[in-house]
């Protein structure tokens, strides 16, 4: 079966090359080549699907003869996470990349099979070039079908930290986002080569760009969520290079989604649009590269890898090639119209575009600063979160303001008087909110946060006004209640009103980010059972320790019961704990029990979530007092261990049982005579709204992506019209 999979992979590589060549031949106008190339893409998708199924089946039955399975899964890995273990490996994530590429390429080529006869062969060639690259990478550098000999008795297992639902979906979401941007990129290249630079390539690939944007955004959110709830760190964003690598294409992609509207409506910004999509896709490749290369010091650097070099070459080819192409096509990319007034939607879009690209540029500089500084000073110096915040905060604040203004203005031009009328109510609302916050809360102590609240209030009020205006107009035409009018708005223009919902979600998200980062309280406490401490208006008492052993998951948990009172009233009982895992990670030396406690450990956070924010606690027990006991157990165990002959299975089992006994003894001692524990207590105001705002934005994105019923009807009508015309032609 594995051999069959490996064969499919080789075949997929060959098919990708064939389709690419056939597509290039098809660019001369012979439809047979272009059609053959398209069918080749379908075959490519089918072959890679078989590969994915075979690999996933190997994970499902834990086929340890396969290197990728032995390295990332084990018989004790829970069933659901066996499936997701595929993309925690480099080979598996390359396969995922290629597979998603093959599926989305097939989808777009199927959708455009009767359109863009000149552009599609070029786009097919670009997509299959990428397909051949990634399958080639698997064949020659990181094969998912590599065998292990001899077959190990047990797999390494999936890193316990990655056993989280968000982590199961986060990587495929990011990759789907990265890969989907290849579609508009490939069509942009096709449009440039054939000089078909009108907006038709945009219309055909817009939805793919939206899906890419949405998946990437969702992936980023899930990563933040995982970091917040699982990492025992309490933060959701740390300006880590790999986080940045996913945010940059998202920001530039956001700019692209906005400025293509200007091209569709007004025939402007063509150079800008093709540049944006080339930048977005290059950044997406860079994201893939950064995760896998280990070039920057990151929490995500997955060790040195073999695929960094080729990926870098690919990025270079994409950047240089697309730049040369754009420069050579500049005469074909002239705007059909000019910006008539600064007070117009297109100019606001342009400003927002510049802000988004500016944000990406700042993040790019900060992310690659270690390399830049090494170039100039010979020293890999790096920048920390405060530096990023200094630039991104003001840019984000202005961005929110313009996000509020954009939807209010019409295309082409708005008279100053009309602009005043449109802006008046949201501005008053924002002013009132700001004044109230400054008067009744301590928000004024953080001016940036206060301004962000004010501008976000402005943006939200502007959106409410837009919905009200739209609903009123709808009612005056077709009557009915306001509720029906709102539904009608969505049905009539999903893209626009879905977009507004995205704006609302992101405004809420940014309010929450500003609040939770500016007004967080963070304390480290060291408590013995029975002791309490005060953090803000919470009183936290360490009631008693808990301990639990779970042989199925090979886990020992030391936990705590914390009771919390707020302003003297009972508020919550929290159970932060720390898990120690057997059998994963590298042994730390100094004996098995010491290795166990210094090895893989995860924090389970104790958290009380309310509308107003989170009370977040984590715990690390002080094992110092247990050290003599651990040392004693280790000395005894090691003396016994030395006497065991290799291959003596029964003696090894007895040895394992002794280890288990020692762990149990330590557990009992811990409960009986509990040592003090170190707690981190964070009060994170409004942090819940990050996830709420994010979810709202995702829903808005789905609304915008969903095909509008009218468009569907129009498509059907188009088919009828075409058939009618054909029949008439025959008659």
């Amino acid at each position, binding site marked *: 079966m594995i051999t069959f999979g490996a064969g499919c992979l080789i075949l997929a590589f060959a098919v990708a090359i064939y389709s690419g060549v056939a597509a290039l031949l098809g660019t001369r106008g012979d439809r047979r080549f272009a059609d053959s190339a398209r069918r080749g893409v379908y075959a490519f998708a089918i072959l890679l699907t078989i590969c994915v199924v075979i690999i996933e089946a190997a994970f499902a039955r834990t086929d340890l003869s396969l290197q990728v399975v*032995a390295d990332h899964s*084990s018989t004790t890995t829970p069933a659901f996470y066996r499936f997701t273990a595929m993309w925690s*490996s480099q080979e598996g994530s390359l396969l995922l990349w290629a597979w998603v590429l093959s599926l989305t390429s097939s989808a777009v080529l199927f959708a455009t099979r009767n359109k863009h006869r000149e552009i599609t062969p070029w786009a097919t060639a670009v997509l299959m070039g990428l397909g051949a690259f990634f399958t080639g990478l698997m064949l020659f550098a990181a094969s998912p079908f590599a065998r*292990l000999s001899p077959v190990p008795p*047990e*797999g*390494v297992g999936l890193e316990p*930290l*990655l056993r989280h639902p968000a982590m199961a979906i986060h990587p495929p979401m990011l990759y789907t986002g990265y890969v989907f941007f290849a579609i508009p990129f490939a069509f942009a290249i096709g449009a440039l080569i054939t000089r078909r630079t009108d907006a038709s390539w945009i219309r055909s690939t817009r939805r793919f760009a939206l899906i890419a944007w949405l998946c990437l955004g969702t992936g980023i959110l899930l990563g933040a969520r995982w970091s917040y709830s699982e*990492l*025992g*760190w*309490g933060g959701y964003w740390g300006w880590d290079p790999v986080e940045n690598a996913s945010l940059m294409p998202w920001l530039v992609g956001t700019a692209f989604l906005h400025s293509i509207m200007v091209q569709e409506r007004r025939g402007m910004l063509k150079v800008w649009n093709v540049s944006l999509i080339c930048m977005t896709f290059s950044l997406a490749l860079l994201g893939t590269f950064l995760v896998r290369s280990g070039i920057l*010091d990151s*929490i*995500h*650097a*997955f*060790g040195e890898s073999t695929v960094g070099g080729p990926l870098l070459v690919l990025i270079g080819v994409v950047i240089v090639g697309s730049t040369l192409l754009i420069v050579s096509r500049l005469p074909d990319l002239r705007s059909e119209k*000019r910006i008539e007034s*600064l007070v117009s939607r297109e100019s606001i879009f342009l400003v927002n575009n*510049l802000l988004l690209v500016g944000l990406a540029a700042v993040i790019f*500089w900060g992310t690659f*600063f270690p390399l*830049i*500084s090494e170039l100039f000073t010979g*020293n*890999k*110096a*790096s920048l*920390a979160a405060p*530096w990023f915040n*200094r*630039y991104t905060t003001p840019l984000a604040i202005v961005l929110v303001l313009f996000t509020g203004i954009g939807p209010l203005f019409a295309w082409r031009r708005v008279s100053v008087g009309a602009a005043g009328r449109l802006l008046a109510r949201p501005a008053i609302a924002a002013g009132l909110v700001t004044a109230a916050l400054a008067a009744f809360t301590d928000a004024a102590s953080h001016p940036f946060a206060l301004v962000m609240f004010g501008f976000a209030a402005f943006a939200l009020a502007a959106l409410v006004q837009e919905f009200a205006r739209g609903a009123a107009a709808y009612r005056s035409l077709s009557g009915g209640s306001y509720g029906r009018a709102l539904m009608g708005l969505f049905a009539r223009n999903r893209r626009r009103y879905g977009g507004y919902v995205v704006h609302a979600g992101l405004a809420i998200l940014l309010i929450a980010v500003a609040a939770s980062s500016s007004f967080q309280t963070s304390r480290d406490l*060291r408590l013995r059972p029975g002791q309490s401490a005060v953090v803000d208006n919470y009183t936290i008492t360490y009631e008693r320790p808990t301990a639990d052993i779970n*042989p199925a998951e*090979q886990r020992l948990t030391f936990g705590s019961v914390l009771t919390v009172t707020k302003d003297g009233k009972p508020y919550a009982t929290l159970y932060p704990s720390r898990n120690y895992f*057997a*059998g*994963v*990670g*590298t*042994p730390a*030396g100094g*004996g098995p029990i*010491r*290795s*166990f406690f*210094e*090895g*893989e*450990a995860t924090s389970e956070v104790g958290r009380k979530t309310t509308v107003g924010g989170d009370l977040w606690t984590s715990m690390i027990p*002080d094992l*110092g007092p247990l050290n003599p006991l651990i040392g004693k157990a280790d000395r005894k165990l090691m003396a016994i*261990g030395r006497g065991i002959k290799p291959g003596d299975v029964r003696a090894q089992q007895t040895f*394992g*049982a002794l*280890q*288990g006994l020692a762990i149990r003894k330590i557990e009992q001692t811990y409960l009986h005579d509990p040592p003090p524990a*170190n707690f981190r207590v964070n009060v994170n105001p409004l942090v819940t709204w990050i996830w709420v705002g994010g979810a709202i934005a995702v829903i808005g994105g789905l609304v915008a992506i969903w095909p509008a019923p009218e468009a569907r009807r129009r498509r059907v009508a188009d088919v009828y019209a075409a058939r009618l015309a054909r029949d008439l032609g025959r008659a």
Partner: protein
Amino acid sequence: MDPNVKRKIRLVVALSAAVLLAVGLIYTSFSASSEAKQPSDLLNASGGSYELTGIVVPGSIQHRGSELNFRMADRDGSKPSLPVRYHGEIPDPFQGGREVIVRGTVADGTFMADRDSLITKCPSKYTTEAQQDPQHVIITDN
């Protein structure tokens, strides 16, 4: 005003904003960054703000109250190690043998890490010899 002049003014304003941002970026990034060092670079150093990257020496981790003490060695593991004193949040993947990054200053041969500055590299790659090693504990059913 002549629209062409207007366009030029806009362009100049936009470009100068971009240049200002770029200059700000370059200037602040060189002053705000901390030098990246390996433990062996700092054995005899004092003062200065550094970003220290290295491997946690297995068996060197000690929790003393809320303080965490450990030693860090170079990535190749060959050079002598540097003691690190740290307060604050300890990321889950922290353990002996792992590659970590901390920020801070050096005083009397000890690296005084900034609060909450400890970062561990995401451990998604493991070596396969792990489970054959008798040093690994197995928790049995009773």
